[in-house]
């Protein structure tokens, strides 16, 4: 499946709708990165949310940076709180 990558700020209600979820692949990632199915509906959604198109490498760098920041925050927690949470894990975008 082909994807497009963009950043867009989730404003809340109707940022993405049930109908849109059925029309194209959409997944949100740290750093307001969105992976969008590359079809007509996906293109329309990127326009709706004024998404800033990114290359996959650019999008991955944003996600990785956000997760590394979250890892640093986790590492600064007390041992008790670290036991309660899971350390964020860097992953690859599809």
């Amino acid at each position, binding site marked *: 499946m082909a994807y497009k990558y963009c950043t867009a700020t*989730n*404003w*809340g*209600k*109707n*940022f*993405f*709708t*049930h109908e*849109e*979820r*059925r029309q194209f692949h*959409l*997944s*949100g*990632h*740290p750093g307001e990165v969105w992976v969008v199915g590359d079809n007509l509906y996906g293109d329309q959604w990127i326009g709706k949310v004024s998404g800033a198109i990114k290359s996959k490498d650019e999008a991955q760098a944003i996600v990785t940076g*956000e*997760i590394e920041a*979250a890892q640093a*925050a986790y590492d600064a927690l*007390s041992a*008790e*709180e670290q*036991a*309660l*949470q*899971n350390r*964020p*894990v860097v*992953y690859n975008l599809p």
Partner: protein
Amino acid sequence: MATYKKEKGFAVQTLSSDTAASVVSTGSWATGGAMGTGRAYMGGAGSQTAGLVYGGATPSVTANTEEYNGTAWSEQNNLNLARSYQAGGGSQTAAISSGGYVAPADKTETEIYDGTSWTEVADINTGRSLYCGQAGSSTANLIFGGYDETAPNVKAITESWNGSAWTEVADLNTARYNGGGTGTQTSGILAGGTPGSGQTGAVELWNGSAWTETTDLNTSRTTAASGADNTAVLVAGGDASGAKALTENWDGTSWTEVADLGTANNGGSGNSGSTNVSTLNFGGTPGYRTQTEEWTTTPAADFTQINLGQVYFNSTSNAFKVTGFAFPTGTWASNTASPTAQAEMWGTGTSNSDALVQSPPGVSMEWNGSAWTNGGTTNFNGQTRGATGGIAAALIWGGSPNNGETEQYNGTAWTEVADLNTTGNQQPTGPTGTYTDTITAGRGPGWQAVSESWNGSAWTETSDLNTARRGLGSGGGSSTDAAVFGGNVPPNNASALTETWNGSSWTETTDLNTARFSGMGFGSSSQSVGYVAGGSYPASPPYNVKTEFFNGSTWTEVGDLANGRYHNKGGGTGASALTAGGYLASPAGGQTTENSIWTVDQGNLTITVS
């Protein structure tokens, strides 16, 4: 004689929404209003249109309380004790908060919300945080599991609230924290969580007096749950070596994956809805979010059960639709390992629950959908033989080093029948004809264009392929309907060529996207549904993970195999197939016991009128 239907046509049912397997399977997550305070590990209560969030980590502890009206969150009176890592329960006008964590200690305080303000009531007996859940109301509640800084850290304790006091009742079978708990004081459920290290998929049901283990989640993880009782429950998000967007539905018997969250979410996001058809998921980590997602399904009154072959008009999307197999959506899933690592064997199948593969030295192994068992032993033990059929009736022919032997299988024993006219190895893989009607084209040694059809008793030479090759994939496979794809061409290269057979001649058509040889072909009707999976590139490894789907005119990439491989064998229809064995890239050249099953779900396909 003309029939009424031929004269007048027939009525097409009009539906307001697409048909589906179940009400819950129609569900999806969409964004709701954003919370005023981003947070994780908070309490949540209420429903999708009357929700409540309180406390949590921002990352510092907060007492902040907000109400949701189905559109937006609004600030309300704070908790008396700011805290995080508590669970929540009840409704927007009658909620409960107990325990939690305020550095450096776990808490026992309990508070009740009456729709306006929080009031302190009796403490829980054992201070702890990250309960696996809080099932019930503000007057009849149940908390279970949790984490405490004193050993043993991970708790199995269950406490019951009668509106005025907490009483210890039967422990969980598996101590854990940060699982998904919901339901009522007499019908509760706990799914997943952390038993101390890693995550578990274990699920337990509460009947009012005891916990009973039941079917595990499909994916072990921490998670959040929503459900009116323990017979209809939705769990969403969580953590399993990273944040997950997975959503699973419990129907009282089994867990089924349904549509993912829009954003993967861990860190104890609240899930306050009271049912598995209408709920909320909010906050969470990474990032201490403000985001809310709303889970909504087709109303039960508008739900229509999916029915293969049904034609209807969707009045909402203004489209005529037919229910069929959505072939491009197919996926491979891992299957029970084969008894023996193998490659370059023969293999065939009619579905992912009916397959037959060679297991050296000449034993045929049967896969019936649940287990591998020994079948009959073949008379000739050649590799790379052609094969068609399933465990009840099959045909194999040719094979290494350069043979023409043909054998029929009756479900018990193999019997030699008439030989091929032209001996050969590296026969096409995956033809899905029958043992009385099939065709084989291309073969080694070298590169041959020979084609022969089988009528149940003898092979007859037909028109040759346009391009001589060996190690092809095949779909279809009757004497009037077949296709071959890819293959090895001189001097030792992968080919992308596709040829279709109409009963009298082979015709070149659209090439594969990725040239390959010794992959596995499958598909029930070569003219419209053909596939090839795996195969070798000219330079190998890496071997091919790609699966391609042929709709009669073009090839489209569909779900990949988990691991690249070649000389994998098996077969099946476009909707249901199995591939077994092959050579893997790691260890280089190693034969594998891995096998995978291909499944395509039914879907509602739009009918396009040109």
